[in-house]
């Protein structure tokens, strides 16, 4: 056998035409570089968001790999078909009458050449692609990868090496096909179909089928083996499939080279081996599919996006008494699209407290498009959603107006008012009302995980959803695969420290006004106007035209009404909410607060911002409270020191909990020191600090700031944030410290 292998090696290297065939592989490099160049050309001149939406070029081999495969397949096929076409096969068979030995002896030399040449070619193709992309390769895309992935990215070195290996595999496939077909033109036709036609046909199929069929194409296997995408197969299954293709082709060749009459045995052995090699890893990997125990069905709510599936899940009202009364929670699912191997489930934790995650997920479905290539995305309409029907919507939606107590007596009076409003809702179902804390919400999320049959979950905690996210991390650290805090509330930062970014935002508003002629306060010192207004309103509340004197705005009312506008100026370039805010301030300075009341009424049906009982029923249990009047005074003094323009807003939520009928059941607690994976925090100018502070408490974590306004950046479709979050959720890779997302549109 060794003699025959040596002889076949000599045959291979003594034919100059083989060198010429190998030289043709340079066309694969040209294809890679050319297409990468075109991508780069298309990339330039696009807006940031358009760039982010580009499909990734990955390791860059995909554009030329079919060409490379063709070259190696031809090299392999010619190793035997050239013997048939010249008649040399007869001479070879006289020299080596054991025919399968003759065929198999061609493998080592061919494989060795293809291995070396394939590796060299793969790396050159990669280098050419990266070079053609240049600096643009580093651009992060929405799908969570960079436009070009350098070898330093995880899995890329592996995918390039495997691509090189696969070229050797393809050379052997060519050999098998050549031996089976026995003619060069015939082999070329078969190989063209295998390498070129089938992948093209697969790409024309409708979507889930396209991804499924595409995953089985040889050219998609290296990426899947390296685990960096390419299709729906797990690495072992993809590797098994590649080997099975080689075995199948060589079996066909060995069968046909065997004299008729003795072929069945060869065919049977080869087919069995190929089946085994492809089936065993696939079976061992198991079906990664979900075992969706919840009975997913079309959603009853027809305002939800069509592809959303809905289910209900039963959870105990009181998790301490699981056998007790239960309630139904609506769960919404945006299923993975099947474009890539499914990695698991991402749970989008809604904000609020009490926002409907199902509605949010439906409304923001577009933000999850890329993520759904690999993940199911679920959310829940949590227990503390105000329109659940258990408690009266009206009482939960509204609440008392809040004033800053100046004395212990006023503090107590505020407490009596709050308690009366709370009792009005609580009396309908006290047990339910007393279990609206975020820890209960976190336990509900765990129940959903169990129902989904997922080993672990990944999370995007939005706004107040950060609190259930933290509680889940504390209760079930081993179940967290990844967690993103997006503009999340931070229970570890107290009062004014939570609002420093808002104060900074006011400064920006003032600067904008000074620079913008359309600002109603243009030409005045906005800070001075504002501070004079709120000081005067604290002494003499500013009436709202057409409303009772009770609706007159105190300084705190003005600040609370202005706060959402201060931190969210609205779309560039008009910044409508800042424009509106400046006008409201101007009118209030002139003695009429209806500029504020008009838009507050739209959102709350109240002329002044009420302290929402529905939110408080969670806040107050979650420990967003003052221990006593003394603490209130201390926090207030601190706020007045740190927040020259918006002092008092930081007291708003705890003031709503003064006098609350139920005591704190879920006080903030530290995150576990170990056992959690690194987290990712994201946030805008106004909410980055809070998220960053949370993830700083989990070793190895990172945070990305978006240099602009906004809240709930992922949901809002911020491409840069989506790119970083997706990369983290897909590959658990975090951005370097200090990474920022530039302002959209720049």
């Amino acid at each position, binding site marked *: 056998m060794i003699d025959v292998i040596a002889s076949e090696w000599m045959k291979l290297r003594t034919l100059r035409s083989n060198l010429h065939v190998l030289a043709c592989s340079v066309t694969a490099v040209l294809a890679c570089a050319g297409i990468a160049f075109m991508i780069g050309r298309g990339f330039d001149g696009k807006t940031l968001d358009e760039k982010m939406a580009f499909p990734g070029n990955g390791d860059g081999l995909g554009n030329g790999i079919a060409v490379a495969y063709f070259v190696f397949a031809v090299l392999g096929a010619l190793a035997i078909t050239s013997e048939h076409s010249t008649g*040399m096969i007869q001479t070879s*068979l006289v020299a080596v009458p054991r025919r399968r030995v003759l065929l198999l002896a061609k493998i080592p030399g061919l494989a060795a050449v293809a291995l070396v040449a394939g590796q060299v070619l793969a790396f050159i193709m990669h280098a050419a692609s990266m070079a053609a992309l240049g600096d643009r390769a580093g651009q992060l895309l929405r799908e969570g990868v960079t436009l070009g992935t350098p070898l330093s990215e995880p899995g890329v070195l592996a995918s390039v090496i495997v691509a090189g290996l696969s070229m050797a595999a393809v050379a052997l496939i060519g050999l098998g096909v050549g031996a089976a077909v026995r003619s060069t033109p015939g082999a070329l036709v078969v190989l063209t179909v295998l390498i070129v036609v089938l992948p093209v046909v697969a790409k024309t199929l409708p979507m889930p089928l396209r991804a499924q069929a595409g995953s089985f194409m040889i050219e998609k296997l290296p990426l899947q083996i390296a685990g960096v995408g390419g299709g729906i197969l797990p690495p072992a299954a993809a590797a098994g499939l590649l080997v099975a293709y080689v075995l199948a082709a060589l079996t066909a060749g060995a069968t046909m080279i065997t004299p008729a009459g003795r072929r069945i045995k060869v065919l049977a052995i080869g087919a069995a081996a190929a089946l085994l090699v492809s089936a065993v890893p696939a079976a061992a990997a198991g079906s990664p599919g979900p075992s969706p125990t919840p009975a997913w069905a079309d959603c009853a709510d027809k305002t939800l996006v069509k592809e959303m599936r809905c289910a209900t899940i039963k959870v105990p009202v009181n998790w301490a008494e699981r056998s007790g009364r239960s309630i139904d929670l609506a769960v919404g699912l945006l299923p993975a699209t099947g474009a890539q191997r499914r990695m698991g489930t991402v749970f989008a934790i809604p904000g609020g407290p009490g926002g409907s995650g199902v509605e949010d997920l439906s409304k923001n479905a577009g933000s999850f498009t890329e993520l759904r290539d690999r993940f199911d995305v679920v959310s829940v309409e949590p227990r503390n959603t105000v329109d659940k029907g258990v408690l009266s919507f009206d009482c939960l939606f509204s609440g008392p107006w809040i004033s800053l107590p100046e004395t212990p007596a006023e503090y107590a009076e505020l407490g009596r008012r709050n308690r009366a409003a709370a009792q009005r809702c609580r009396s309908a179902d006290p047990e339910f009302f007393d279990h609206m804390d975020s820890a209960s919400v976190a336990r509900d999320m765990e129940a959903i995980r169990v129902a989904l049959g997922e080993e672990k979950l990944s999370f995007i905690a939005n706004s107040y959803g950060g609190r259930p996210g933290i509680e889940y991390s504390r209760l079930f650290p081993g179940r967290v695969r990844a967690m993103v805090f997006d503009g999340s509330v931070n229970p570890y930062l107290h009062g004014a420290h939570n609002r420093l970014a808002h104060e900074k935002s006011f400064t920006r508003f003032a600067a904008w006004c000074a620079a913008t002629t359309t600002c109603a306060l243009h030409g005045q010192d906005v800070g001075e106007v504002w501070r004079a207004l709120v000081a005067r309103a604290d002494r003499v509340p500013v009436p709202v035209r057409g409303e009772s004197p009770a609706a007159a705005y105190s300084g705190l009312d003005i600040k609370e009404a202005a706060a959402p506008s201060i931190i969210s100026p609205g779309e560039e370039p008009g910044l409508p909410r800042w424009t509106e805010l400046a006008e409201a301030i101007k009118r209030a300075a002139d003695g009429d607060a209806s500029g504020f009341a008009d838009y507050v009424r739209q959102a709350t049906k109240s002329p002044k911002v009420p302290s929402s009982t529905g939110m408080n029923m969670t806040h107050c249990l979650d420990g967003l409270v003052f221990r006593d009047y003394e603490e209130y005074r201390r926090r207030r003094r601190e706020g007045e020191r740190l927040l020259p323009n918006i002092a008092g807003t930081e007291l708003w939520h705890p003031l709503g909990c003064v006098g609350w009928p139920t005591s704190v059941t879920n006080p903030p607690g530290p995150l576990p020191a170990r056992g959690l994976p690194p987290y990712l925090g994201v946030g805008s100018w106004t909410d980055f600090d809070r998220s960053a502070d949370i993830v700083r408490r989990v070793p190895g974590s990172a945070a990305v700031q978006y240099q602009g306004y906004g809240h709930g950046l992922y949901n809002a479709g911020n491409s840069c944030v989506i790119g970083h979050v997706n990369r983290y959720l897909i590959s658990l890779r975090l951005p370097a410290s200090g990474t920022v997302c530039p302002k959209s549109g720049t």
Partner: protein
Amino acid sequence: MIEVRGLSMRYGRTLAVDDLTCTVKPGLVTGFLGPNGAGKSTTMRAVLGLEVPASGEALVDGRPYASLRRPMRTMGALLDAGAVHGGRSARDHLGCLARSNGIDRARVTAVLDQVGLTDVAGKRIGGFSLGMKQRLGMAAALLGDPAVLMFDEPLNGLDPEGIRWLRGLLRSLADEGRTVLLSSHLMNEMALTADHVIVIGRGRLIADAAMNALAAHFQGDVLVRTRHPERLTAIMRAHGGTVVAADDGARVARSAALSAALSVRGLDASEIGVLALSQGIALVELTPRAASLEEAFMRLTEDSTEYRSESGTTPKETVR
């Protein structure tokens, strides 16, 4: 030694070789004769294991060729001088073959020298003439210094000098005690080359004999030309002669325009002369003719002429 025992080969419904049994012995040059399509190549391919027999077997030194570990050291064969890859040099071609059978690289140089291709050893085979390819094929067969050699139509494409060279080579190989089998469809060629002939037609064995015994078996005739063929025929037949009209074609002289030619067997020239004199018949010509082997061959294989017309359907090159 090559032994063929009860060998039958079948292509579809056509029986190409029909229960052939023969033995090719060492120390002799054995000719394997038969018209085109008689089954010579098929038999040779069966000996080399290139075809699977329908029944029977072919053995080389007592073993099937395909079971030999390094077959080129036991038997060298040349079936088709064109069965080479034109892209390789003669030296590389032989090198590949030598390597596959664990034959020392020095043999390549030796056989190239033996067949006279040393000067073109580095040239691509694609540029070789048919004769050069035949020499290269011979070189490949000789590479393993085998005790058994088998050549299919080796004289094709050789110039007269080449043919003489090959005859000498075959002779010396046989004299070294090797078994040498070569096929041909031309008897005259064999007459000068072979010690022994095996003749087949339509896949069946027709003759298996020493060359001189075969020649003796087929005697010659006497050509008689006369203006009185009827009378002469009658008297010759009366004396035991076998007379048929002879076709003497263009050799008819103007003066003999009215004469007829007869081929006579069973009587020699002097007996015919005496008989003609006794009858007063003038003979225009009286020529004893030795039997040509070619004619003997034709007569042996007359039965297989029908088969010859079917021979186009016999695959020769295909490897199955």
